């Protein structure tokens, strides 16, 4: 259960994909945040994509995790996008005003892609 909190980070031609897995809550968000920030600061990718396909649960701590990574990426001038955003996660993102503000690009927002 605890090892699944660590995201898988894949690099392809300077583009970083972060595969988040399992349940994102206040308990698991911290190791995820530390792992992602460490990798982004060290590698300085040309872009970052957070892939949520394998996320089975997310509460507002997940929103905090995503908003915080968005802040970091913006500070570093790196575009950040989300992939495989399920219906339930999208609902929480909308509450945070993420989509409304167009601060973030959501790729393939589809039911078929979600693990929700």
């Amino acid at each position, binding site marked *: 259960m605890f090892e699944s909190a660590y995201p898988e980070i894949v690099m392809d031609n300077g583009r970083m994909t972060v595969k988040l897995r399992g349940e994102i809550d206040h*308990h698991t968000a911290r190791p995820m945040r530390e792992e992602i920030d460490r990798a982004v600061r060290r590698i300085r990718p040309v872009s970052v994509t957070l892939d949520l396909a394998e996320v089975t649960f997310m509460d507002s701590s997940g929103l905090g995790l995503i908003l915080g990574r968005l802040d970091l990426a913006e500070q570093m001038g790196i575009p950040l996008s989300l992939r495989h955003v399920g219906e339930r996660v999208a609902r929480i993102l909308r509450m945070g005003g993420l989509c409304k503000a167009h601060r973030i690009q959501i790729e393939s927002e589809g039911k078929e892609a979600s693990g*929700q």
Partner: protein
Amino acid sequence: MKEALLNEYRLTLPARSENESVARAAVCTMAALLDPTVGELADIRCAVSEAVTNAIVHGYRQQKNGTVYITVKLYTGSVLQVEVADRGCGIADVEEAMQPLFTTDAGGERSGMGFCVMQAFMDSVKVTSAPGKGTSVLMRKRLRGEDERRKA
């Protein structure tokens, strides 16, 4: 018609972050007796997660060995009531704390959207708090799972 109590459960958990997942799983197991839809169960899971996390992160932020008290009641008419209480620091201004994006956890994991999520996913959310004594979050939801399925 007055609702009659069908089942009542009490759960106490040490206020430690790894128990957030335990709390929401336990409450969902209890709520499942009311035959909710998958979506309703997901709503409950998320709302409980928010309330329990608030108790741990905010209620007990200055003290160790706190306890989170959860009471789940199932009523006739498919009504679920969940109370999440702590005996922590309390909230001085409940109205302010419930504002979107309000958080005292600067730089932490929280987004300030916990109460908004609870309100969006449950029918009602009532917060009672006294500084120095603790906070109680009382949430209710009428599950329509059965009706929905009958319509289908």
